[in-house]
């Protein structure tokens, strides 16, 4: 057994947590791509 005394580094804990990764992997593209993109389109001015 590996010794349990050494703490697991934070980044390793992040990478070992599939649900945190899932959250990040959905949120970032949803905000940067989908929501931002949809807002850009919604804000296109109307021609006269």
């Amino acid at each position: 057994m590996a010794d349990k005394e050494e703490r697991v580094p934070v980044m390793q804990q992040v990478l070992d947590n599939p649900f945190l990764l899932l959250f990040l992997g959905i949120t970032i593209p949803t905000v940067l791509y989908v929501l931002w993109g949809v807002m850009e389109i919604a804000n296109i001015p109307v021609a006269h």
Partner: protein
Amino acid sequence: MSAILPPSERIWWNQPIDKLEFTWIAIALVWSLAMFVMMIWWHIYGNQNLANETYKTTKEMYAAKAQAVVDQYTVRTGTEAEKQFPIVKPPAGSDIYMIGRLWDWWPIYELEQGKTYKLHLSAMDYMHGFSLQPQNINIQVHPNYDHVIKITPNQAGVYSIVCNEYCGIGHHTMVGRMYVTKGGE
């Protein structure tokens, strides 16, 4: 001991990174950032940036604007091969409206080399693809959106506008034309 087994060290995050591997990561990072900066740099110093000026419009409104330009500046009628489309020669700096519809680009514009025009693009039915040949400038054309692009032709000649967004069975017959002349100077 391998990629299909769990890491053999409980704490792998602190393992040292191979020197060559690290070098490559550094090089790749620099190149990635350079490519990122390149796009921004071209926005400032480059001459070919696709404008984002766009308006929501309707097909009727857009068609009426195009018709008005055609009515005002038509210089002659095209040959039979040109479907007898109006050939329109607006002054430099004008707004010129190009209509993409099943299955042609209407009308035919005659522009002057070195002059700047405000080219408007919109579609009347499905989406179309504005593909200017042999320049090879390709822009997506949507219905109900009026996309305004300032263009400055840099070479005289006869240009074709191929439709390169699939728009139904007659898609391959959708080819328009544009003339660029040397101008008076």
